[in-house]
């Protein structure tokens, strides 16, 4: 089967500085894949490259077998890849309901329609209500997103990301800054919402990573030094030396 995401020999330079060097990554369909690595290893850059926020200096990225490197973010999104952001990135002046609904519109085929009443689209309404229910924000539906608590904004962020029904979901540190209880709730949420889809996640919290991921890739200085199941990664001496050894103690 074609992998959901395949990154081949991707490099990214900013001026003379090379952030990503010979990056190779393969994420199978339906797999939950975590990318870990020390700060500054290039995890966010990898996300930005795959989702089209940046284009690679060289190399190739494929989504479900089709080349997406060089495409604009919205083109990649329309091909079924959706990502969240490390820093909360919602539509602050719009209500929670409007936030999620906007994320549903393209996928339900309404696009730039200016001849339809947006309140009068049953399919959109149903999906929006479902997602609000899923992310436990139904009771906050009429609150402007900018006024939500931090944890609620993180949940809304996940809601916006999955709302379009993309089959490849990329979450950038979804539990950053959350309390222990909030993290557990968020992990349960992610597990449930990405059922049957492909998930790529960047995460610092090792309990989240080892609890959630089927496979893990370790990124150090813009290069993947190991890729495997959680057990393999735990046992890998290179990983221990480069990463876990420093951070675990």
């Amino acid at each position: 089967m074609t992998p959901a995401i395949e990154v081949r020999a991707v490099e990214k330079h900013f001026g003379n500085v090379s952030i990503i060097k010979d990056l190779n990554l393969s994420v199978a369909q339906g797999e939950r894949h975590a990318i870990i690595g020390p700060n500054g290893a290039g995890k966010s850059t990898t996300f930005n490259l795959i989702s089209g926020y940046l284009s690679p200096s060289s190399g190739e990225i494929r989504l479900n077998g089709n080349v997406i490197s060089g495409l604009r973010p919205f083109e990649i999104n329309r091909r079924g890849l959706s990502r969240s952001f490390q820093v909360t990135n919602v539509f602050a002046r719009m209500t929670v309901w409007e936030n999620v609904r906007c994320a549903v519109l393209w996928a339900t085929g309404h696009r730039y329609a200016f001849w339809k009443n947006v309140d009068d689209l049953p399919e959109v309404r149903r999906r929006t209500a479902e997602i609000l229910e899923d992310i436990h924000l139904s009771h906050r539906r009429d609150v402007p997103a900018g006024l939500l608590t931090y944890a609620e904004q993180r949940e809304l962020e996940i809601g916006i990301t999955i709302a379009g029904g993309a089959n490849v979901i990329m979450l950038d540190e979804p539990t950053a800054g959350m309390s222990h209880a909030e993290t557990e709730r968020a992990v349960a949420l992610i597990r449930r919402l990405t059922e049957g889809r492909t998930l790529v996640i960047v995460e610092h919290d090792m309990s989240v990573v080892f609890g959630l991921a089927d496979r893990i890739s370790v990124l150090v200085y813009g290069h993947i030094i190991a890729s495997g199941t959680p057990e393999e990664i735990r046992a890998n001496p290179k990983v221990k030396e480069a990463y876990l050894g420093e951070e675990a103690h």
Partner: protein
Amino acid sequence: MTSTAASASDIAAKSSGQNLRFYGLWVIAAIALVVLPLIFSSGGSLTSFSLIGIAIIFALSYNILLGETGLLSFGHAVYYGLGGFAAVHVMNAVAARGWPIPLPLIPLVGGIGGLVFALLIGWVMTRRAGTVFAMISLGIGELVGSSSLILRSVFGGESGISTDRTALPHIFGWTFGPQIQVYYLIAFWVLVSAMAMYALTRTPLGRICNAVRDNPGRVEFIGYDPHVVRYLAYSFAGFFAGIAGGLAAINFEIANSAYLGAVQSGMVLFATFIGGASYFFGPILGAILVTYLQLGLTSLTSVWQLYFGIIFIGIVMFAPGGIAGLLMMHRPLIRAGTLGMVIPSYLVAALPTLALACGVILSIETVARYTVTGGEGNIVKLLGIPFNTTAPATWGIAAVLVVGGFIVARITWRRIAEAWDRAASIARDRGYLA
């Protein structure tokens, strides 16, 4: 799942209730537009209403950019003006060739004129948002404004191009000679355009415009190209501005380069922002106020534009939501029943604030008349009291009012803020404020 279904049907019920209120409001607006000239039937008020109607459409079209999509344009009059010129040329052609196009359809010609130019130039213009867009819009405004003086055959040079609205085919025996008939024509287009623009805010495109305003970067990751969204919003704004320009051409029976100019662009920005860009009805309020002030102040003072500038700066600094924003701030307090807590502080603040305002007005008028007459004695009348512009007493009173008023007013403003915080926190506790 059952709760999802329940909440979805809730929403359906809620939106049908909203629909009822929504149609009710438009019916009331329509009735008001019909009845208005029957109550105020003087020629002067008919002219004012006509101008206000045109200004409402123009300001609402501007708000498609500013309030809905977050695009700050300094050159929106380009579309108003081109709409006006398109209308005048077609009116003259209709009159000369005897085409069967009645006058009530001419505003649509203006709209198409605005739309075509917006479609042509909009793609390059809307590539960026924010400050760059603002600067480019200013540049295009200047470009079209200056070109209009060169292309004399199209724009008629300094004097403009005039037309005769009664020369078009009449329908239902209406010649559109009398101002009352022109008023009703404008009122009809105000209603139609306002409804269309309101409807636009409630379409998928309208909502995505809001999303682009709030966070263009994120929009790219939910499948939309913000550039296309801005382009479409820009085209709609051009279309409705063109309708307003077409109506202006009918009303004045002339189109000239002033239609396209920087002053016109500035006025629509003032009207929209003073009224409040965050609410649909804000620009309507602003258009009414600014047009009314423009008509009223010109006869009272020679420096009326300065007052606009001061009001505008005050709104930008202290009430960026405009008048509509100020009004709507009170809604949760009314619902929570805590409005009574802030009213006394308003009343206390009213007196020193008024004194400050009087001081500012007295200073401005004194200086204005002093310089015009080159230092000779001149009388300013304020609240019925005559002040001699050369008398030191006048200058002293103005200074005392400004300085004293400001010091006292500042204390009372702080009291308003405190009272407001108390009232708002109770409203929050009662669940009327997020």
